[in-house]
């Protein structure tokens, strides 16, 4: 296979959400001497963009997004292994967790998979995270973005408490809240820097807040 054929197949594997094929193809591309930046730009990023577009147009759903994100993550891991310095592949650092009292992890898992697929480093605090733990991790990790993903109306208070604590303690990272239980307006009132109704919107918002195109 020539370069464009491999990259085309890799794009297709990402869009179709076949992580095993994506891994194989990215290795094949690297072994064939294809530049890692070219693999990223002409296959991985283009594939990710197509997936996002299909989600926005209602053609793709959560399952498609997750598998595409798995495929992208495999590609990035494979490329990183080949590079001595992979720091340029990291767009930023995101800290994420669900608020205290909320054990629902589906939304968070999706955002993590998508963010990693877009080149972000993600620190996952898990579920049921108390405000103090968010603060402690934010101080330690020097992150760009803090994301709190919630499903339950009953955890709005805890999300508010977390945002207030982080802001009061001078954390400079942008704080975004995720989940349909909130709105742009309620996020503003709570003092957060943004709101995303779902995982894909979350990724777009983070990129916007960080000035990443």
């Amino acid at each position, binding site marked *: 296979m020539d370069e464009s054929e491999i990259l085309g197949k890799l794009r297709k594997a990402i869009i179709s*959400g076949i992580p095993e094929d994506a891994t194989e193809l990215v290795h094949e591309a690297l072994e064939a001497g294809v530049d890692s930046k070219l693999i990223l730009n002409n296959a991985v990023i283009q594939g990710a963009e197509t997936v996002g577009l299909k989600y926005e147009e*209602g053609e793709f*759903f*959560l*399952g*498609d997004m*997750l*598998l595409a994100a*798995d495929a992208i993550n495999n590609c990035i891991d494979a490329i990183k292994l080949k590079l001595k310095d992979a720091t340029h592949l990291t767009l930023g650092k995101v800290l994420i967790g669900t608020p205290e*009292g*909320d*054990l*629902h*992890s*589906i939304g968070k*898992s*999706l955002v993590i998979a998508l963010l990693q697929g877009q080149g972000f480093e993600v620190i996952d605090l898990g*579920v*049921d995270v108390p405000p103090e733990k968010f603060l402690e991790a934010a101080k330690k990790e020097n992150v760009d973005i803090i994301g709190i993903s919630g499903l*339950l*109306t*009953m*955890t*709005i*208070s805890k999300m*508010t408490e977390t945002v207030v604590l982080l802001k009061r303690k001078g954390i400079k990272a942008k704080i975004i809240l995720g989940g*349909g*239980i*909130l*709105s742009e*307006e*309620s996020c503003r*009132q709570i003092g957060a820097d943004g709101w995303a*109704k*779902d995982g894909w919107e979350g990724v777009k918002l983070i990129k916007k807040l960080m000035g990443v195109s």
Partner: protein
Amino acid sequence: MPHDWEASRMRTGATLVGSSKVDRVPYFPLACEEMICRISGKTLRELTSSPKAYANAAIMTYEYLKADTVAIPTAYAGPAEALAFAEVNKKEEVTKWFDYKVFMVEQGAVCKTLEDIEKLEIPDHSKVQMWDTCLSAAKLVGEKTKFRPSCALGIWSVVQELRGVEAYRDMRRNPDLLLKLCEKVYESQMDVYNFYNEKIGFSPTIFFTGYAFNKHMMSFEDAMKYEGDFIKRIQKETSARIVLHNCGTTPYFDEVCSEIDLLAINGSHPLDIEYWVDFREKHPNVAIIGANIDVSRELFNGTPLDVENKVKENIMHLAAEGRYMVGPICCLPWGVSMENIMTIPKAIKKWGTYPLNLE
């Protein structure tokens, strides 16, 4: 003045079937464990320590809220069903308890592997203490108020609890196995239904948490495959009428009504009232419970006047011909001011008494 449950029963029943003999728009709040703890001052462990304690606290809460419905919220296809599966499959450690809200099971922990799905045991709810307590409490509520809480079922809500995010990967990679899990959940839900009937009596309506019916989660085709077809089977087996609940932001309410015979829908999105007006025109025989009253908006951040205006807007657009109940979505959370919460029944009385006068 004591709460007139007989009047509430007549009001909600007549509204659901579209009778003109309704004195005012009913109030259908979702007061979950958190609100019952808040009003009764008891922890969840205290509430669930006996059917009597839970029943009394639930009645007290719904009466305090001036509601026209009453429920034992734990008895639905959510954490309690995940707990039942966790118990029977010897994974009790994945359940986490809280003082003033419902316990939760770590999503995806019960069916972590494909083998877990294959070997998943179905709970016998009569042997699960939590279910026995909750349905005994529901029975007591029915005896004390003559208002029997509906049987509450669901498929996808349970699948998500058991399998977590992997369920969405399975949808593409292991659809047959996912369907097998849905089948097992269905079997378990029928066990809940039969246990309910045995303990309390026939439930003419089923409150169904249809979480699959959400546009940003799956296609409508998949929603029908993994939940809708099971609803049809439940309808066929039970002859009960379905009230479909979905508290997501992009529900398939309109689409689902073309496929499944529903008594009512319960949701708060989309927030555009015109969607609901349009829905009413397209599905005049399906009652609407809720419409665009979302707890995270006016209730959380607004003033009592904002809340009143929202209730008025909904009544004005949807209640003229009946088949409408005010119902904020989703559960009333701890952080909402009681003043805002108590504005709802006041606003219903003011604007929702028939004949409506909304000038």
